């Protein structure tokens, strides 16, 4: 049975059909939440909320875009809202973090890509990502982690293609400028 049929069944009031939709999209929704929010239990809660929002508003889904794009928009908006409310509460500047955690950041940058990570390193990754503005975090995650095209990111973030390109370029430059210091001595 294809996804469109599950959606039709959910619209007709068959709750059970939504379980199959969740099964199909759970991994990436949870992945997006985990990458942007960091904490695993917060990511689980956020993923539940995202699916609940999708379930409640599925009647509004007309099929103009793919269901995945529609769900990406709900997920990106939800994560963006959570990140914005979080960044109002506490923000650590790049400079403060680089000064305090320089050694750890250097270790992360020079470690082999497939090496396992300690809890301490995983926490440091979250704190580094949290230095980026919320919309940069979302755009980078959608592009680099989830492999979405610029068009798909524009649809998910409800903005123009130019805006997506500009955000990604600035996010990348911001990251590179702050990390350059750690890799110059390595001859990178």
């Amino acid at each position, binding site marked *: 049975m294809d996804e469109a049929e599950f959606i039709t069944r959910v619209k007709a009031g068959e*709750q059970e059909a*939504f379980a199959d939709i969740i099964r199909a999209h759970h991994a990436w929704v949870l*992945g997006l939440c985990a*990458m942007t929010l960091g904490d695993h239990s917060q990511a689980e809660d956020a993923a539940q909320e995202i699916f*609940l929002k999708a379930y409640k508003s599925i009647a509004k889904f007309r099929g103009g875009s793919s269901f995945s794009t529609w769900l990406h928009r709900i997920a990106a908006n939800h994560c963006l809202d959570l990140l914005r409310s979080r960044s109002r509460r506490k923000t650590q500047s790049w400079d403060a973090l680089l000064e305090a955690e320089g050694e750890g950041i250097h270790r992360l*940058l020079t470690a082999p890509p497939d090496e396992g990570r300690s809890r301490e390193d995983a926490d440091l990754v979250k704190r580094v990502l949290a230095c980026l503005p919320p919309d940069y975090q979302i755009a980078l995650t959608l592009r680099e*982690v989830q492999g979405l095209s610029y068009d798909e990111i524009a649809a998910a973030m409800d903005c123009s293609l130019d805006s997506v390109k500009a955000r990604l370029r600035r996010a990348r430059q911001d990251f590179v400028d702050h990390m350059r210091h750690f*890799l110059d001595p390595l001859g990178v």
Partner: protein
Amino acid sequence: MKNEENDERLWARIVAAFLRPPVRPSARETEAFVSEFMSRLEQPEPREALWFSTGLRWLVPAVSVALAASALLITRPDPLFTPPGDVAMLAEGSGISPQTAAPTTDDLVAMVMER
């Protein structure tokens, strides 16, 4: 050109270090997630007050504005205030017009005394 190449290499390292895809949830974790979601769906939703959910929520700002306007009207000095006769006469004798700014009796007496 060299800078761009360096930035490309640096970016590749940054992606490997900070933008590594998270571990995919196992089938069992997904099933646990689904059953938690479905049990959430079956729980009755917290009910809003009927008037609030049936399009009467505009009443909240409307009543607030009405209350604020009433409070302003009550506390604002009356522009048509006329001071008691003796104070008015006193003020007129001193060349002060008590009608212009609706001062209180105490203000008028103070102004006269100053003169």
